[in-house]
Every structure is written in C-alpha cells, then in structure tokens.
C-alpha cells in the first residue's frame, strides 16, 4: 500500500493531487524550485524539498534530483501531474528500476502512444478508427485518384515533401479530383522538386472530443464518457464541457468502446485520455492518447462523481477497478474554463506579476482548482495559468448561467487575466446553442473582442471615483500644519478621521 507520494509538479495540479492524498491518509512530498519557495504547494505538503533553479529543465524536469528526493523522503510512489515528466517514458522506467511506483502507465504504453505512426498502426490493428489516409507517398496519378475514391470526399492532397501550404489542395467535389491531384503534383514538383503526395480525409467541421478511461493492472478498463474540448486557441484548450452538446447516446457508447479498445491495445494501466477528431455527423477518428491526467479532468469528476486521482492511486496500488462500466452515468453538466494571467487584448501575452488581492467565486455548483493567494507573485518561469474554474449545473443552460455568474464574481487585481474573454465566450450565441467546432474562437474573433461600453453615468462615476481617491489620498498625505487644527477645513478633518479609522 502506498503510504507516501512525491508529487513531481507544482501549481494547481500539485495541490489537486495532494488533496486526494490528504483525503486518503497518504503523506505528500512536495518538490520546489527556487522560484517556488512561497508557492502554496510547498506549504500544503507534509514534506517539501528544494530541487534546483527556477528553469524547469534544472528542477521539475531533473529526473536525478527527483529520484534522489523520493529516496531521501522515503516516498513509495511518484505522481507526475500533467506536463513536466508526466509523459516521459524514461522517467516511468527509471522509477520502476528504483523500486518506486510511478503513478501512470509504463514505458511501453507511453512510447507506443507517444509516436504518431506507431500509435496509428496500433489503433488500426485494434479496430479503432483513425483519420483515413495514405501512409506512403503516392507518385502515380491513377493510384492517387483510386485512393481518394477509397477514402471518400472531402480529402486533402498534400505534397509529401511539402510545408507552408504549398502543394496542398482541398478536394470536395468528385469532378475536381483529377484536376486537383494534377495541380497539387505540379505545384509540389515546382516547389520541392518532388511530386509525390499524401492523401488524407479532410474533416470539415472538426470537433475535439476526448474520452476519459481508467484501466487497472488486471486487464479491466472502463471509460468515464466524453469531454468536448473544441473551444481552442492555437491548439490550446480554453473551455471544456461534458457532456458534449453534439453527442448522442449511441455514438457515445460506440466511442466509449473504441476508447477502451485503444487503451487495451497498449496494455494500459492508469488514467488516460483518448482524443478523437469528430465531424458534424459524429464520424470520429483517433487523434492521440494522453497517457496522464488531463488539465480538464475535473469536469468528468463533477459529472461522473469519480475522484480520478484517487482512482489513479488505487490502480497504482494494484487494486482492481472500483467501478464497472454499468455503475457509471453522467449526472448534469459541467464546464471548465482556464483562467490565465494574460492580456487577451494584446495577443494573449502572458502577464505574470503580483496578485494584489483575489476573490474566488463561491457557492452552489462552483469548483475551483487553484494555487494562488492574495500577495502571491506568479513566477515568470512557468505556465501562467491561475486557476481552473469549474461549474456544475443540472442542465447545460444552468451551467452556462452559473459560469457567467462565477466569472462575474471572480476578482483578481494586479495582473491582467482572461476572465473577461472567457465571459464573452459564454455570451456567443453559437456557444450557447452548442454549435461550435475547433474554429470557434477564430470564427468569432470580433464578438470575442467586443467589449460592453459603460453607460454615460457609469463613465462619470468612474471619473468621480478617481477624483475622490486622488483628493482623499492627497489630504491624507498632507502633513499637519504647525498651528494644528485651525488650518483644517471640516472637509479635511473628515478625510483625516476616515484615514485613521481605516487603520
């Protein structure tokens, strides 16, 4: 039985993992870099050890140092969180060699799923749908046309030596097949001196839908339904929700079965996620597997009612899964937004700095995973995520209303955050209706930039408030004159009295 876990991570996920440790009566060991001595994860752990300078390659990615701390502290297991060493097969292997339980899959699963081509082949063998396409370059025109007809339209024809959009052709109509392939080939030849092409199914309105799975070391595997993660900015997820607004019970069941098959194909043990690209008609194809806990795992926890970190630990302990597939169901609707310290008006530039004060949203249906506090300075070395705000509602509209309410009452001063941007997403009709693809943010750039204006009175009051602040602070700064009170107007006296009573 695991008694002490080293958490090889920082920030909200370190605290998330420690929470489950505390709840299970397991000791937790934090590691921290020079930039993190005053981070909450250090104060939150039972033990904490320094592991090196701020840059993560000298600290949170330093395998030797982390193994050393695990041994020194007597930790019998390591939880890698997400990012950092979580999908590092060498680290998983090294832990095994050192007799330390790695809370995650073995090197074989990580390696197989980590390589796109091997993963694709393994999935094909397991009967999991992958994006149809050629695996070898095609030179012959007839062969290309034949392949396109096999795959079915629309397809993307890509120069095999290509890049930068050159030699790429989207083919949507049957009558365009021949001319498009010819055009792509001659363009490829001109640009790269090589007219070989790849052909791949083109997904028109792509949705990113992923399935959470749990597998034990005894060959049992279940899925915990889907997460819809199509609201992305430059391939970074921004909003996640479950259930997916486009899912049907039939497809869900089938995708779930395929997700389980994918995990079983690599003898997976632990928590993992199978990502699918899905079109508007719910045709879906395996994209990749994340062999770790996902950032967005809380929405599954809220809707399915299973603590995923607890189950990861149970699995690492060699226990059989505590749930059968038929025990699980989805209950209500959950949405997560990722709140970043960033300037969304200025190309989403990270905006680390000191948090003067923070008011977290509270109340019914609100879950908050964070690691910051008033007075904390967000280090410049790591991901500028401040927190994950998760809401649960009986229905999707209730959840959206709750998220809007929560974002409105979430106050952070000192750094710019993505809160207003996230709030605007909740107002976009296509989001409200659940009609969105991975192009959502791109397609709604204007709506997401548009800010509400203050009323005329609101502007006046803002100016008055600034003026009153100026006058009040100035009065307070005035040194008392030598003849004392006589120079003080009643007005000044008020200012002073207020200043005193505030102390």
């Amino acid at each position: 039985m695991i008694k002490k876990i080293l958490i090889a991570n920082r920030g909200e996920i370190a605290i998330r993992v420690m929470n489950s440790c505390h709840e299970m009566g397991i000791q937790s060991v934090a590691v921290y870099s020079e930039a993190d001595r005053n981070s909450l994860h250090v104060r939150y752990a039972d033990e904490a050890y320094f592991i090196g300078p701020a840059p993560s390659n000298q600290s949170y990615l330093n395998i030797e140092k982390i193994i050393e701390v695990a041994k020194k502290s007597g930790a019998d297991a390591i939880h890698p969180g997400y990012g950092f060493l979580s999908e590092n097969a060498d680290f998983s292997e090294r832990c095994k060699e050192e007799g330390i339980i790695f809370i995650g899959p073995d090197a074989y699963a990580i390696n197989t799923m980590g390589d796109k081509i091997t993963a694709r082949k393994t999935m094909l063998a397991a009967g999991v749908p992958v994006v149809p396409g050629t695996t070898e370059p095609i030179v012959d025109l007839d062969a290309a046309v034949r392949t396109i007809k096999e795959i079915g339209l629309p397809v993307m024809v890509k120069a095999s030596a290509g890049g930068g959009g050159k030699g790429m052709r989207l083919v949507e109509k049957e009558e365009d097949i021949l001319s498009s392939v010819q055009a792509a080939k001659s363009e490829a030849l001109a640009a790269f001196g090589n007219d070989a092409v790849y052909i791949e199914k083109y997904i028109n309105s792509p949705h990113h839908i992923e399935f959470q799975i749990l597998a034990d070391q005894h060959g049992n595997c279940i899925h915990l339904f889907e997460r819809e993660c199509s609201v992305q900015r430059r391939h970074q997820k921004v909003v996640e929700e479950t259930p997916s607004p486009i899912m049907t019970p039939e497809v869900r069941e089938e995708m779930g079965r395929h997700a389980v098959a994918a995990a079983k194909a690599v003898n997976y043990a632990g928590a993992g996620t199978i990502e699918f690209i899905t079109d508007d008609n719910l045709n879906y194809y395996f994209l990749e597997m994340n062999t770790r806990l996902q950032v967005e795992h809380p929405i599954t926890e809220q809707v399915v009612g299973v603590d995923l970190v607890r189950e990861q630990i149970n699995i690492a302990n060699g226990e059989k899964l505590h749930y059968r597939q038929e025990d699980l169901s989805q209950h209500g609707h959950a949405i997560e937004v990722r709140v970043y310290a960033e300037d969304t008006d200025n190309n989403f530039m990270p905006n680390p700095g000191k948090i003067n004060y923070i008011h977290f949203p509270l109340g019914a249906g609100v879950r908050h995973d964070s690691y910051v506090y008033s007075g904390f300075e967000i280090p410049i070395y790591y991901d500028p995520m401040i927190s994950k705000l998760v809401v649960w509602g009986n229905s999707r509209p209730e959840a959206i209303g709750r998220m809007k309410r929560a974002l409105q009452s979430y106050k952070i001063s000192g750094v710019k955050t993505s809160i207003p941007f996230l709030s605007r997403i909740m107002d976009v009709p296509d989001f409200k209706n659940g009609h969105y693809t991975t192009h959502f943010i791109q397609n709604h750039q204007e709506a997401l930039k548009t800010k509400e204006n203050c009323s005329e009175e609101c502007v006046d009051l803002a100016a008055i408030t600034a003026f009153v602040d100026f006058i009040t602070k100035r009065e307070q700064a005035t040194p008392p004159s030598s003849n004392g009170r006589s120079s003080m107007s009643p007005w000044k006296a008020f200012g002073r009295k207020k200043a005193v009573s505030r102390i």
Partner: protein
Amino acid sequence: MSYEVNINGEDREIEILGREGNRIKILLGDKTYDLDLMEVEPGVYSVLWQGKNFNFELTPQSLKKYTVDTIAEKIEVEIVDAESRYMRSRKGGEEEDVAFISTPMPGQVVKILVKEGQQVKGGETVIIVSAMKMESEYKVVKDRVIKEVLVKEGDNIEGDQPLITFE
C-alpha cells in the same frame, strides 16, 4: 483650488459640493451626483448612485492618472489641476515666463539636480519630488539660469511652494 477631470480625452470641471461620511455630493460638468462612495478594499470602490451599485477598481498610472476598471470597460481618467494646466500650457508652446518651480502637492524632495547660478537648458530636469510614493521630475521649458534653491534634499514640502527660482 479648481479641478477638472479628463475622461477618455475630454476635460470636464469637477467640484465637491459636500461630503459627510461616505455620502458625497459632486458636480461634474453641469451634472450633480449624490453618491454613497466607499473604498471597501484598497483600490476598490463601491459607488451607489440612485440605488444602483457600481464596483470600480482603480489602478493609478501616475500621480494624477488612473485607469478605472468598471465591469464593462476600462476608463482613463486624469486629474487636471493648476499644475497640469501649467504643464500643458508649456507643452503647448505658449510658454509662461514663470519665476519659479513649484509642485501642486505636498511631498518630499528626492533630488536637486542644479546649483544656484547654474545655466540649464530647456527640457532639463531640475528637481525630483516624491509624493504618494511616486516620483515626478520637474523640468524647465526653456533655457534658464538658477537664482535660488530654496529647499534641500529630504525636505518635506507643501504644495504650491516655490522650490527653485530663476533669474
């Protein structure tokens, strides 16, 4: 002293007509506002006007410039006082031939960069004054000769007090 506020680029006169506790009566342009205005946390104000609640967060940009974060948009506000007007007038090219440098606010002299009798060029900083934890540099507009330095570094000064006089 008469004040104006510059709101998103436009100047308007402002005057406090009365104040008692949080209640404040203020004239902005030709509009009178009766407000209940309170700093509920450092830099955070709750303003009640005709029952409506406005929450504003102030971020000072400099001594007299604020960014006011309303829920909807950010408003840039600058307090315009005698000094600002003077500074502006100098910027505007219509240079007053002032006889001395002064500050509009009480503060402390941080640094004096000139000596009596010294020749200084237009645009040169002659004194740095700190008020409310922020430092301001005071420059001459055109070439001048320093006549007297009336304060020394570290001195606490009141507003509108001559600090350095010119020939």
